[in-house]
Structure formats: C-alpha cells, structure tokens
C-alpha cells in the first residue's frame, strides 16, 4: 500500500522544500561550474575562429588567378602556424603579462598555470589558462592573414613570412596590450570588444603599408592610367570562404564575451551571435543595393566583401546594439566597402581581395560607431585609439617592409610573376591541364 503511516510526512516535507526553493533567490552557479563553462566557451569559440583560417584560404584562393592558387594556400597555412608559434614564444606575455602603459613583459615561452583551479580554488581562477591562450592565439593569426590577401600574387613567400613573424611577435602584441592588456588606451576608456581596431585594422594597416611598398601586380595599372581588372579564378571558393568566415565570426565576437558561467553571460553571448549575423546581413544587402544602383548590376565579389565589411563593422561593439542597429551598422560597412574598393584602385593601390576596404576602412567605422550604442565610450577616445594604433602599426610595418625590400627583396622577378608563383616558387601547378611530366595528360590525379 503506497500511503503508509509515514508517507504523508515525507510528502509534506518534500512539498515544503519545493515551496522554499521556488521562492528562494536564484541559486548561484558554483565556481567550478562557471570555470567549466567559461573554459568551454573559449575552446569552442576559439575553434570557430581557427576555422576562419580555412575561410581566408578559400576566399583568397578564389580571388587570385589559378597560377598563384597553391602559393596563397601555402601562405595562409604557414602564417597561421607562424602566428601560433610566436604567440607561444613571446606574443602572449608581451600582450597580457604584467602590462605597463605600453607593453607587457618580454618573457619567452608562455606556460599555462592552473594550480589554483587544480586545487579546487575557483575564486581567482575562472577559466583554464590554456583556453585563454588558445582563444587569443587564433585572433593574432586572423590579423596576420588579412595581409596575405592584399599582397597576393606578387610577394615572395619567405620575406612575407618574415614580416608575419614581426607582426605577430611584436607589433600585434604591443598594440593589443594597450587595450585588452589594460594598458594606456584601456585606461583612457577606449573600447574594442572583439577587435575592429586591434585585429582587423591592424591587419589592414599592415596590408596597406605592404601594398604601397611592394607595388601593384604587373599589368594591373598601365603607365597611361588605365586600370585593368584581374578577375579571380573561382568565385565558388570565394563564396565558400566568405561563409566560413561568417560562421567563424560567431566565435570571434561571441567568445569575446569572455565568459559563459552565468545566465547573464549566456544572454550576452546570444545577443552577440544575433547581432553579428545581422551585421553581415546588412553588409551584403547594402552592398547589393548600392552596386545595383551605381552599376546597374550586382557584383558577387563586392557582395562577399560587403558581408566581411559588415562583420568587421560590428566587431567593435556586438553586444550593446539591438538587432536593427546592428543591421544598420553592418549596412554602412557594406556601403563603405563598395566605395573604398574603386577608390583604392584610383589611388593605384592594388588590393587583390578588397581586404583594406573590408578590414581597415570598416574597422575604423566600426570602432568610431561604438559610442552610438555604448554610452560609456566617447567618439574622441575611440578616434584617439584608431589614430594611435594606426600610426604605430603603419610605421612599424613600413620599417619592416622597407628593411626586407632593401635586403632580401620582397618581389619575385618579372618572369616569375608572369609565370605564376606556383610555378616559380613551388614548382607546382594546381590545375595541371597539360601533359608535362610528372602529370600525364588526362590523368591529372594519377
């Protein structure tokens, strides 16, 4: 029989406990659970950002000529690795450890330290230290890969990697320490949530100085002032790359909430995901509308650039806007891209993939747009940050490019550029259509 003499007391007690819990304040997530979720967020979001390396590779592959495709793939593969190693070698400590006003510490070979968490003390340890290193590492890799797109088809591999080494080991960490490392710009009140300036503009400034010092591709600009289009070889790859970047951006902005150990953090991350997507949407639609109006035609490559431009624009502040504002911020980014691309060409600056419009121009816009929705910032401090980091990165990059240019040289010979860097630097043909050994005719994969 279910209802014995003791059962009613048990039932009543259970009911009383349930009533108590129902009227209690919300129970706090334990320190260990918060630690787990925060760490999880860094790891998953970091993996999404790593996936952006594939996005950049495919986008750039699709927008170069086939004779340079393998080279651009190799550049993307190798720069991701250089960035990953230098961030271990020196970058993380220079950016985050014992940061003064202008830089962190020169301590080689960063090491994880989870002794507190391992001992069960979660008061000061809110995430696994390797997860933070991992998450920040993929960001510096992103900044570096912006440069490879602009300079594609006419920069030599090893000098390019030499530049990437200095960019990722020194330039990026120092300016990053000024903000995320809580240096002087952070104290001034400058705000850059996920890196419109710290990542995208940094890549953009490095790319711009590189493009100016390296020069344009042969045949891009004629001596009589003619601008020649050099179309990409595979827009399907370019589209795939853009969608991959778009998806990776959820990790890029979402993970920059830097927490998932509470409902508030989860809500913030959800809002960031939604705003990030909406900004890309605005960028694409605005780009399509403007190109249709101006050129009576929609251009896929500009629409793809518009998506990236929208994403970059929201990256400085993806948390505080509402969805509508995020759409508009991204939309302005899309418009900026459509005008910036031909403007660069008129200035005879050869940017193969439109990285400078999408990352630098929209990075500046996104950073200056932060005060629109974030009352704790001001346009003046935002502008100070844009200019300070712009000057620092441009000057430092220019020094490196000039040293490389006048020592080992950064351009291939005219012959090598014409033949294609795949042939000249790698001895490879990605699309081997002819019967030259060892590719037998009609048996390309054999």
């Amino acid at each position, binding site marked *: 029989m279910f209802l014995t003499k003791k059962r009613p007391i048990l039932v009543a007690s259970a009911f009383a406990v349930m009533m108590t819990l129902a009227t209690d304040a919300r129970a706090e997530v334990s320190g260990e659970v918060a630690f787990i979720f925060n760490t999880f967020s860094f790891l998953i979001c970091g993996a999404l950002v790593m996936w952006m390396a594939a996005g950049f590779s495919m986008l750039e592959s699709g927008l170069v000529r086939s004779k340079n495709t393998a080279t651009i793939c190799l550049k993307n593969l190798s720069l991701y690795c250089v960035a990953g190693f230098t961030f271990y070698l020196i970058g993380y400590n220079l950016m985050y450890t014992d940061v003064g006003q202008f830089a962190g510490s020169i301590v080689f070979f960063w090491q994880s330290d989870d002794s507190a968490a391992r001992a069960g003390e979660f008061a000061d340890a809110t995430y696994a230290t390797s997860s933070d290193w991992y998450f920040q590492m993929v960001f510096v890799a992103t900044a570096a890969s912006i440069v490879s797109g602009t300079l594609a088809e006419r920069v030599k591999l090893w000098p390019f990697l030499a530049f990437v080494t200095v960019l990722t080991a020194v330039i990026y960490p120092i300016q990053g320490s000024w903000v995320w490392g809580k240096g002087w710009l952070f104290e001034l009140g400058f705000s850059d949530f996920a890196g419109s300036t710290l990542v995208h503009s940094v890549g953009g400034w490095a790319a711009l100085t590189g493009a100016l010092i390296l020069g344009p591709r*042969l*045949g891009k600009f004629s001596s009589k002032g003619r601008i020649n289009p050099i179309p990409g070889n595979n827009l399907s790859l370019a589209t795939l790359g853009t969608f991959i970047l778009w998806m990776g951006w959820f990790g890029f902005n979402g993970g920059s909430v830097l927490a998932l150990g509470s409902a508030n953090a989860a809500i913030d991350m959800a809002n960031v995901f939604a705003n990030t997507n909406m900004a890309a949407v605005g960028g694409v639609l605005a780009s399509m509308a403007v190109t249709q109006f101006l050129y009576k035609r929609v251009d896929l490559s500009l629409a793809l650039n518009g998506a990236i431009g929208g994403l970059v624009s929201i990256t400085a502040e993806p948390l505080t806007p509402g969805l509508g504002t995020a759409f508009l911020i991204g939309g302005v980014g899309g418009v900026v891209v459509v005008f910036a691309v031909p403007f660069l060409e008129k200035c005879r600056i050869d940017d193969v993939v439109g990285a400078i419009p999408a990352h630098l121009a929209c990075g500046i816009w996104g950073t200056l747009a932060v005060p629109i929705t974030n009352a704790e910032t001001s346009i003046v401090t935002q502008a100070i940050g844009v200019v300070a980091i712009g000057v620092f990165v441009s000057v430092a990059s220019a020094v490196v490019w000039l040293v490389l240019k006048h020592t080992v040289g950064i351009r291939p010979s*005219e*012959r090598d*550029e*014409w*033949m294609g860097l795949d042939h000249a630097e790698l*001895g*490879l043909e990605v699309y081997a259509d*002819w*019967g*030259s*050994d*060892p590719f037998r005719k009609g048996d390309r994969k054999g």
Partner: protein
Amino acid sequence: MKLIMAFVKPYRLDHVREAMEAVGVDSFSFTEARGIGHHKGERDIYRGVEYAPSFVPMMQIIVMVRAEMAQDLISAIVKAAKSDEPGSGKVMAFDLSDVVDISSGTIGPDAIRHREGVHS
C-alpha cells in the same frame, strides 16, 4: 600583305604588344601554346623527385600587316621578345593572298588597318 607569326615567352607578351603599338600595329591575336624546341626547359623537383617538363609554354602571336610594314614589325618583335633565357622564340612571315574584313566587306590591303601617322 603578310601574316607574321611569332612564338614568344609569355612574360614578354606585354613588351611585344607595346613595341608593336609603337610601329603602328595595334591589332593582333594570340593563343597560349605549348611546345618543345632545342632548349628543353629547366629541370625541377616535385615532392622530392626531379623531372624535366615535356613542354614549355609560349605565346603564339598572329598579326596581319601590309607588306611595307612587315620588316619594321619583325624587327620590333625580335627586339621586344628577347629575354635573358635561352629559347626566346621565333618570328616567321607568310605571304597573304587574300584578306577580307567581315564587318565592312572590304577586300585586300585596305582591310588591314594600322594606326595613322606612325609609319611613313
């Protein structure tokens, strides 16, 4: 009328084009060709194995000129197509018996138009 055919190294194509324009010829066509000549092409390494390519790429330029232009054009092409490497190519001339312009129906030397004022 003459048909001038030239095989030139691909990276000399822009120089050849400018040289032809300088003597008044701005109409021509070209195809990408592969071939093998006396110079076999440099040996290379692919995944650790050395090989010599069977064929090397060249640009095959075809241009029709009035007979009096032919010598100047050939000299211009030879000068512009010369490269530092061996095997810079060859230029040859054919006699053309008939040329017809499809758009206008013009027959003979008038069907070939050069830029005015350059060739005396």
